[in-house]
């Protein structure tokens, strides 16, 4: 597989150089791999820090800015960042109100963020953590690593970010971030595997007439392989899987997310099917976001994330946000 790169070892730093040049609102430490909003630390504001392996862009760097993250730490492709990155980020965004780490539930992310929290606490910072684990394809038990964190991360970062921007204290931002995390569920489908720069070829083989149901965002195979399905059938399967786990008794936010290589034309068509089946199930959709937001390099496919919201969360969703990849109201 061909890539638009200078070599596997340069991918992450090259991308950071590109972000630095394109986004004057950001301070990008290419060497130490930390992306910080230019005006950090924002006085009297809780700092929001996230990060994870690269390859999911625009997550997380594209969500740094007013009303969302204060800093993001990109690791190597599909490899969680190292503790030093998050500790630096925490120091850079701390205004004295403490810092919240938004952590996707993967062994590596959890361990590295834990170590970072220790480092930051050693420096006298107050650190809280919220775990995102929204992927219903994974059985959540003490005999697995637990549900993966995928599309729900966007909702946690946006809603907690809006609240932090309003000046809410750390315990309240953390509580709302947890509420959002528990209110999100995701389900993903791959039509093709992705190609990591390090491996240079597809991470798994998927015949021309099959698809993978229940995939994550790291090029892992899913829970089940099936004969190729139509957009309508995929929407039915995805929403059914979501509603087996989340029974919203009110409106939801919907993220109809592309994995990277699926054209927006197809995503919108798929989104129409998601709306159809949610309508059939009587679930009102308050807001819909369609596009490539939490990706898996050049994988073809999609995921659906639903986030149950109340009035307050809906208000936070609509609040101004000013980042490279999510922006409205300012």
């Amino acid at each position: 597989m061909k890539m638009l790169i200078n070599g596997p070892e340069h991918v992450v730093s090259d991308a950071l150089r590109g972000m630095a040049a394109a986004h004057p609102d950001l301070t990008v430490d290419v060497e130490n791999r930390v992306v910080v909003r230019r005006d950090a630390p924002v006085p009297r504001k809780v700092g929001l820090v996230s990060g994870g392996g690269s390859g999911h862009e625009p997550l997380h760097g594209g969500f740094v800015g007013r009303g969302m993250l204060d800093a993001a730490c990109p690791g190597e492709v599909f490899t969680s960042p190292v503790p030093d990155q998050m500790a630096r980020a925490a120091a850079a965004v701390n205004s004295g109100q403490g810092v919240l780490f938004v952590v996707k539930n993967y062994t590596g992310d959890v361990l590295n963020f834990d170590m970072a929290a220790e480092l930051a606490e050693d420096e006298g910072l107050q650190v809280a953590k919220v775990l995102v684990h929204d992927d219903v394809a994974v059985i959540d038990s003490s005999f697995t690593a637990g549900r993966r964190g995928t599309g729900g991360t966007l909702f946690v970062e946006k809603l907690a970010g809006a609240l932090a921007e309003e000046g809410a204290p750390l315990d309240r931002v953390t509580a709302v971030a947890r509420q959002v995390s528990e209110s999100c569920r995701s389900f993903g489908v791959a039509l093709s595997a992705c190609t990591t720069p390090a491996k240079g070829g597809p991470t798994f083989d998927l015949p021309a007439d099959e698809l993978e149901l229940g995939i994550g965002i790291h090029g892992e195979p899913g829970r089940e392989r099936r004969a190729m399905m139509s957009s309508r059938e995929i929407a039915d399967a995805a929403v059914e899987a979501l509603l087996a786990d989340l029974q919203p008794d009110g409106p939801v936010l919907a993220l109809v997310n592309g994995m990277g290589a699926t054209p927006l034309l197809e995503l919108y068509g798929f989104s129409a099917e998601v709306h159809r089946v949610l309508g059939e199930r009587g679930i009102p959709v308050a807001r819909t976001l369609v596009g490539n937001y939490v990706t898996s390099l050049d994988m073809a496919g999609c995921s659906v994330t639903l986030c149950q919201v109340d009035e307050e969360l809906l208000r936070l969703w609509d609040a101004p946000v000013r980042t490279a990849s999510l922006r409205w109201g300012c």
Partner: protein
Amino acid sequence: MPEMDARFFLRWLEAMTAAVDREASRLTELDSPIGDADHGSNMRRGFTAVAVSLTQTPPATPGEVLKEAGRTLVAKVGGASGPLYGTLLRSTGKALGDAERVDGPGLCAALRAGVDAVGQLGGAVPGDKTMLDALTPGVDALPESVEAAREAAAKGSEATIPLLARRGRASYLGERSIGHEDPGAASSALLFATLAEVAADVR
């Protein structure tokens, strides 16, 4: 095993760096069907950094060598393997204390402490299809001989093939994780293979 000094441990980590470099693409391949295809590059990045740091300022005691290596892995790898391997080496190093030389039983006990720390950090037990499935039998056999430990760890890694994964990314796959060797177990087997290699050289 004869008594081992800091140089012995430096050589062991050099050998491990070379082995990981040589085997990187195999480890990444193992991480493809049941993981995210980065274990080889993670290990290579980490041990290359270890080699650099230990060459620049070689620590004077076995304990310091392993602690410095562990710190470097934590600082450079990321992923699950960074903290886990970092903890393995740091905890082993800590258990060695600040002695200038270590004997066989001392290394056995220290490595046992390191492996225990891995279990504590990651919450896995043998049989969960993780690096512990090579580390544990390796440490168990080490009192017998390094050769026995090498063999036990290699067998332990192979024995992960039929297992259903209960920790790490492979656990997401449920039944589909069966039939594949765990990449972390395979790299852990290299740790004992290189130990045996270096011990044989010294003898």
